[in-house]
């Protein structure tokens, strides 16, 4: 079922001496996440958690005059690479699903970019969707999905192409407690099958308890927000 599309060995994600000037503070981070490790990043609103995720994903850059640091995946320096070349699986807070495309097209988007045949894409999508009970919705429009279904589609879209790391920005914040619990277990199961370094941004203490194998906390100092490993 889970034949690897990309059989490269999974590598450690290293954020090395990063300092990024944000509007009224400097975000500082120096930590690493090993393959299979699940880091949960917690901190107050506006403390730079999303900025860190965007930096690792390549959606923001360390291009400011006083910005510094490197982001590594194994021995590969990702700092200058654009987002489309980093191969990070990102689950956005608002999911970022493509409403013009259906479930199948959303889920197989990255595989299409990589040039996989239609048959291969559909087979992969079906097997992944089956795991979360969405195989019957394969041709549904995105706006016809419930909140939990949309969340699962976004989760699978981020993982199906076997990314090098997995970044989740408060993925469960808009869901009710029961659904959060279900999705947490599904996330853990899916991550077990593709154990790349994972960083999850959250406010929820239950995420810490149930998901984290490493805790990252934003500590506020004068003019700085420092990511601390606990």
């Amino acid at each position, binding site marked *: 079922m889970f034949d690897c599309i990309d059989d490269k060995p999974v590598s450690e994600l290293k954020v090395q001496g990063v300092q990024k000037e944000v509007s009224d503070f400097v975000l500082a981070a120096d930590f690493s996440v090993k393959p299979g490790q699940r880091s949960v990043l917690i901190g107050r609103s506006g403390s730079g958690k999303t900025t860190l995720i965007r930096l690792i994903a*390549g959606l923001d850059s360390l291009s400011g005059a006083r910005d510094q640091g490197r982001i590594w995946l194994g021995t590969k320096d990702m700092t200058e690479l654009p*987002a*489309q070349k980093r*191969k990070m699986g990102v689950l956005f807070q*608002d999911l*970022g*699903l493509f409403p013009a495309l259906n479930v199948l097209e959303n889920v197989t988007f990255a595989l299409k*970019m990589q040039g996989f045949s239609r048959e291969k894409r559909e087979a992969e999508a079906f097997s992944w969707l089956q795991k979360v009970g969405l195989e019957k919705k394969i041709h549904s429009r995105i706006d016809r999905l419930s909140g939990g279904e949309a969340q699962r589609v976004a989760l699978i879209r981020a993982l199906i192409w076997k990314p090098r790391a997995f970044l989740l920005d408060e993925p469960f914040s808009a869901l009710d407690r029961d659904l959060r619990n279900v999705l947490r277990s599904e996330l853990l199961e899916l991550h077990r099958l593709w154990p790349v370094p994972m960083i999850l941004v959250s406010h929820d203490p239950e995420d810490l308890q149930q998901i984290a194998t490493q805790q990252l906390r934003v500590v506020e100092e004068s003019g700085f927000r420092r990511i601390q490993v606990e």
Partner: protein
Amino acid sequence: MARDHSVHLIPRGLGWFSSFVVFLFWVLGVLIPLGALFFRLKFFTRMEGLFSSETLSLVRVTFDQAFLSALISGALGLCLGLWIGGDSRWASRWAEAFLAVPFGIPSVVVALGWVLMLGRSGFLARMGIPLDWAYSMKAVILAHVFLNLPWVALLVAQSRRALPIQPLEAAATLGAGPMYRLRWVVFPHIRWAFFSACTQVFGLCVMSFALVMILGGGPPVQTLESALYTRLRYGEFDLSGAVIYALWQLFLTLIPWIVVLWIQFKSESHSLNQNIRPGILLDTQVQHSSRTQFRIVDGAQMVSVLFFIAPYFLIFSNLKLNSMDSFKSLISEITPALKVSFEIAGLTALGVVLVAAFTVIALLFLERWPRFKFGISILVLLPSGISTLVLGLGAWLAYGKWVDPFSGTIAALIAVIGLQMVIFFPIAFRVLWPVSQAMPVRQFEAAATLGCPLYKAFWLLDWPRWKGPVLSAFAVVMAASLGEVAAASLFYHEDLISLPVLLSRWMARYRFEDAQVLAALFLILSLLTVIFILRSRSRVRLY
């Protein structure tokens, strides 16, 4: 959402290239021609011509007809717009769509419709109402009112429709009657749209060319625009006189343009405070309507709107085609003009859509420098405030040394297309710019994290959203270009006669029956374009 990050979506190379294209277009198309007009003042030995009694009298006539037309259109358009925009039943939606029809009809067809209505042996005379207003100032004002009133009504209706029902209900619970609610709740909401529409109408009436030339009869009623034309292409050639009229014309048209920009700026800052979604509330309004109102009000609304479109459809009455042979000879006369018109319209529309697209890209790119972007966004809309003939004269003064646009060769074709591109550019830009403001930035980011390059993400995710507006902009500009008279008349040549010029020429030679057939074909073409635009807009999915 992540709107702040949209600037990073435009690659630097593309951003700079687009900015260069827009800069070049604006400098060559607007700045240099206008500069040439002012530069010409240097050759005036005395400035008396600018303030001669003849010039001032023309300025007065131009101002008076435009002011009266705007006043009447504004007053009646306000009432009609409030009425139609006050509910959301199917009839009011259709009525609103019909209000857009006059803008798809070429001005020469409008003029012919009014000649058939007001002429000595026209429709009204045959009905026993011998007004005989054709070729008079009254006819010009009446035609302007019928043409522009639907525009005012349309903008007012759209603005009124966007007003949520809650403030009205709150006012009612506080004891406000219908008039009080209109004065203190509805009017403050729609006032910017209303004043903006009136000011635009004033500007359009100042710039009106074909209607004044045909319905005013040429010399009996002259405005700055028609006088400018006659100084260049009709009777005695008088370049200095033309430049003087052009400068006055520029003065009269740019003032309303500045006022409209100011009003739009005010209304945008005003609308930022509106955080209630009107779409949801309209459903509530529908529930309020009763069955009894349904039939009476719907019918009355449709009749009111159709009343303002009816004169143009007189063209279909008494269409005379004597024989198949005469029809064939008519078609053979029309065919070359049709070919020229489609060549001009197709190339103009293509050029305009391309320049508008580059402008959108440039402005998104320039969001990095907000003040710079604000200045550019004002300048790109400047052609809305300049009449075609003024710009044409300026272009001729600026480039006539190298290219003679009156030669009827390829130079004239390029001159007409270039002029129309500058004039119609704001239309396409206004269609495309709002689409760019709803760019799905998060989807682009998500696509990037999934290994998709920007151009591919645009094609796969965003192009379906752009397709409708781009086709719409193309169709609007093509329709406007097909019916455009001023540029085509200014640079016309026996080898370069477009359909509107042919039509006005037949009217000038009293070939009214033939003109009527051509106008009918024109009208059908225009209506088909309007229907296409309405359909393509309704298909656009916004997400």
